């Protein structure tokens, strides 16, 4: 039996104990009251009953600004060193299943091909994920449509289910088992608790209000690259890129060198970048392969629902609904699916 119980009043104790060995990252408020994942100093700062964070927890392992290496220019040599925080032992506490799944996608992508992104891999290896199931998914959530589930446990190391006044703690991976074993003071479960967790999982699944036939959507996307419908669905887009920056699966980055004006030191850093910006693909010669909003918009959607499935047989979306909530012009992904699904119907009519 891998399950244990954790009283909500003991969260502080748990965090303090884990905090001795690991840095704890969890959802917390920033200065403007947004929920972000950040390093926790005090257990009281942790938020656990949040809907979902504004900035996805990718910011912990793939921060907005990440040092690739540091350098110091000397008289006839350059000294290059690896970034410092690579081997920091981290726990991401209270991550939602969708966001945990996004790490899986990151690992898949960054670990693909001849060159592997060792920075992310190393950080991920030193990280333990404590997931919490969503009992009340939002209206904009659609994880069940993209092969996810509000109580999906596969991608985390330890999985918690909120049972009201306590959490059911289930260790999933080896890493998770080891760490839960050390927490000997966790109490044992009863059959009723496990049963209740199962019920909650089922309830959560049933309360998902959006259901999309994603296989069909992918197929239509693959066949309709040149469809004029792209003009219509991208009409209202203002090209701001908040959808991509706040997407848990968007991994594109820009690389720049930053020098300390006061010394000969510097660092090469990578920053989150967005494919919605026109300079993203602008070549030095002035040629731009994706000069228009329509193309950039299409690239974003197809990258997740066409290129990703083609290359890795995975859907590049975890269904967190952040882009739906955040879009300033309310260009709702669900509407895009709906209008895309309509094209096929029209064509079928034509065939008949």
């Amino acid at each position: 039996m891998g399950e244990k119980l954790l009283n909500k009043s003991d969260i502080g104790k748990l965090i303090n104990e884990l905090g001795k060995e690991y840095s704890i990252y969890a959802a917390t408020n920033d200065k403007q009251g947004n929920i972000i994942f950040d390093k926790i100093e005090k257990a009281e700062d942790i938020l656990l009953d949040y809907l979902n964070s504004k900035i996805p927890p990718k910011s912990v392992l793939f921060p907005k600004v990440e040092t690739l290496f540091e350098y110091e220019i000397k008289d006839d040599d350059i000294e290059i060193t690896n970034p410092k925080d690579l081997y920091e032992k981290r726990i991401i506490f209270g991550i939602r299943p969708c966001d945990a799944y996004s790490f899986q996608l990151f690992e898949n992508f960054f670990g693909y091909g001849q060159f592997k992104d060792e920075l992310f891999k190393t950080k991920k290896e030193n990280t333990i994920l404590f997931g919490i199931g969503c009992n009340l998914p939002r209206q904009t959530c659609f994880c069940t449509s993209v092969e996810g589930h509000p109580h999906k446990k596969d991608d985390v190391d330890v999985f918690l289910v909120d049972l009201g006044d306590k959490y059911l703690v289930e260790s999933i991976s080896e890493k998770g088992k080891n760490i839960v074993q050390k927490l000997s003071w966790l109490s044992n479960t009863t059959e009723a608790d496990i049963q209740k967790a199962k019920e909650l999982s089922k309830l959560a699944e049933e309360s998902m209000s959006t259901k999309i036939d994603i296989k069909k959507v992918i197929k239509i996307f693959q066949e309709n690259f040149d469809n004029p419908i792209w003009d219509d669905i991208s009409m209202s887009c203002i090209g701001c890129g908040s959808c991509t920056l706040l997407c848990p699966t968007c991994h594109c980055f820009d690389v720049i060198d930053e020098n300390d004006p006061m010394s000969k030191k510097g660092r090469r850093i990578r920053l989150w970048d967005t494919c919605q910006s026109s300079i993203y693909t602008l070549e030095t010669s002035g040629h731009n392969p994706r000069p228009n909003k329509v193309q950039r918009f299409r690239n974003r959607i197809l990258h997740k629902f066409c290129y990703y499935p083609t290359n890795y047989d995975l859907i590049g979306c975890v269904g967190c609904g952040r882009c739906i909530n955040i879009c300033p012009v309310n260009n709702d992904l669900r509407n895009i699916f709906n209008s895309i699904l309509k094209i096929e119907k029209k064509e079928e009519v034509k065939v008949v």
Partner: protein
Amino acid sequence: MVIEEENQNIEQLIRELARKLLEEKQVDVIIGYAKGTVPLSSAPIVIDKVEDVDKLIWNNLCYINLAKYLVPRIPQFTDPEKGDLKVGIVSKGCVGRALIHLSVEQQLDLNNIKIIGIPCNGIINRKKIEKEIGEREILELSVSGDNIVVKGRDFEQTLPFDEYENELCKVCKVKSPPTIADICIGECLENPVIMDDFTDVADFDSKTPDEKWEYVKSLLEPCTRCYACREACPMCYCNLCFVDQNKPVWFGKTTELSDIIIFHLIRALHMAGRCVACGACSSVCPMGIDLTFITRSLEKIAKERYGFTSGIDPKTLPPMMAFDMDDEQEFMLEED
């Protein structure tokens, strides 16, 4: 009149005028607002058929400045055969101001545009509502009487409209677009005279530099550099923004505080005497950063120093496009 009734009247006005324009073929397309799919939003929409007129709505969440869809950076209202299309644009005061200012800067031709003037009755501050409701999901938001009613799964909360209105809308003096002969229909202001005492920024002005710096720091800290503020701003139409320039690289692109502050400082500088105070930048910010203090201060500087209010008169040049021998220069260093 209560807000709820006003909304209905405005909506009716928009639909009537839009129907008339389309039926009489005075315009080819109309840009307006449609109902959003999430509670705190509205969606810009383009219609070209009379049947679609009923999709146009008005509520207190129409925060996008529709003039953005006409700036040259996003050219889309052209037809291969007809050339430039005639566009009708649902205009609250700040949309009208943006259009007029853009024409002053020769970025668009007002003759291709029909301004459908409406008397805006204020926009709700989305961020303030989100903050108030906290981590509960908002499922529905409506205006009832003079109150905002927020409904969720197991709660219902009534909030007074006055308190949750955008700061900018509270002090707005140009609720309807200024009239320009021949291109305006609906409710427009004839020769508006703007009187503004800027009492709302007086408080901020009296702070010491360090206090201001601390305020700016904590305000801008969450910025992710997504540039939604820039993209939603009708005045930001440069082909290549200064932060994107790389010959030379002027300012850093990182999310370190100094780079963030510099970005907002320079953007504010570029908005000087041009900002039309629509508040779109604050409304669209995914991180809820309220840039009102910049907007208001820019208006104040332009008004107090040069007597200029942007987007009122298509014939007056904005302060940064003109100069005068007798400009005040009290900030110049002089011998004692």
